[in-house]
């Protein structure tokens, strides 16, 4: 299991790390109790500053995904799914629409995006 980031991407490294780990956490690939590599290990491997990784870990800890203990790395927590409110759903919809529009502006057809979204929905239902 690997975490991959693109240093040339316009998306900041911090955001890529948070998003990449969150996908693994939500999908259950990082099970509760498993240890994440140390901040130093991840920073050296990805070639980013220690603070970038530390900030990403703190964000995930703030969301309740991981437990950070000084000198003991990060441990994945068992996390009860919080109840999502209407405001969050609206925000999600807006971001998804913005992303779809961005892809369309870059030449992706509506049909292609529809297939992608269906595939994603299928993965969520499994």
């Amino acid at each position, binding site marked *: 299991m*690997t*975490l*991959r980031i*693109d240093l040339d991407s316009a998306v900041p490294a911090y955001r890529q790390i948070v998003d990449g780990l969150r996908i693994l956490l939500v999908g259950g690939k990082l099970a509760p109790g498993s240890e994440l590599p140390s901040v*130093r290990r991840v920073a*050296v*491997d*990805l*070639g980013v500053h220690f603070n970038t990784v530390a900030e990403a870990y703190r964000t995930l800890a703030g969301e309740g995904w991981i437990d950070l203990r000084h000198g003991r790395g990060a441990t994945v927590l068992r996390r009860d799914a919080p109840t999502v409110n209407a405001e969050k759903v609206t925000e999600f919809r807006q971001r998804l629409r913005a992303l779809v529009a961005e892809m369309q502006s870059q030449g992706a057809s509506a049909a292609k995006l529809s297939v992608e979204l269906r595939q994603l929905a299928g993965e969520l239902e499994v």
Partner: protein
Amino acid sequence: MKPEFLLAVVPLLLIGVLFQYMPLITRRGIYFSASVDPEFPRSEDGRRVLRSYRWQAALWTILACVLAALLVPQSPQYGVTFPVLLMVVGLVYSYWLKFREVHDRYGLRRPEVRETSLSPATEGEGIRFWVVVPPFLALAAAAFYLHAHWDQIPAQFPMHWGINGEPNRWANRDFLGVYGALLMGAVMNLLFLVFAWTLVHMSRKSIMLPVTLRMLEVLLYPLTLSFVTASLMPLVRVPLWIVPAVILAFSAGLFVWAYQKITAPVATGETPEPQNDSYWRAGMFYYNPGDPAIFVPKRVGIGYTMNFANKAAWFVLAGILLIALMPALMKGK
């Protein structure tokens, strides 16, 4: 021809030969430290660049030999230093020119995609305890042997030999005189292990990591052998040529093994570390302020080099220089 001149020419020729073949000691997809198509080195342009570089390297070697011929009779000590310096600077300059040519005309821009493993560390990635302990046991065994035969050690004995095989430095039968070589051996072995530990914890995973770790582990053996032999010299007569011969054989064997490893089909599947070529100054010196790694795999040669943008790397370099100059500094006191 004077022996001093011959002694000066041998290292110059060795450096010359090393630089002739250096561009070939690299991973697939890298040529003169620039990112290229893996097939480029075999293309007509790739061969032409290598030929041109080799001519330049040969010219620098000849120039350095001529300079040595002029300077050595005047000053045997500095008559070697200046030609070596001139040659290394010239060769690095030639290499830099070729790096720029390959990068500008044939280079590839690889996306800087990096990854880290989220799985627990797998075996074989660290230092193997059972491999590194025997050299320390050998040093301890030699110390016990010397202690047990203390009375048989001469009051004064040779501890260093010149190139002509004649002793040129002597030691007394006291604690430092008898055990000094073993202590130095233990310190050297520990330094190797500290370096290996730093690589494991402060460098990226790459085919170069296990290769370098295995090399460091194995090099403890000839290193220990040389210190054990030196310490036992007052009691046991060992031909002087044995230690350099063993070190040379180990080094040659290790080099061949490492070269095969980094160019093996399994290694060629690995993407060379996706770094922008611009981080490599003169194609040899890594300088990336955004990278927290202290050591990064070399683009040319086998092993690791330092990230010169990292302050910690300069401390490491200062430490290495201090250790290298220690004998001279101690001698001066």
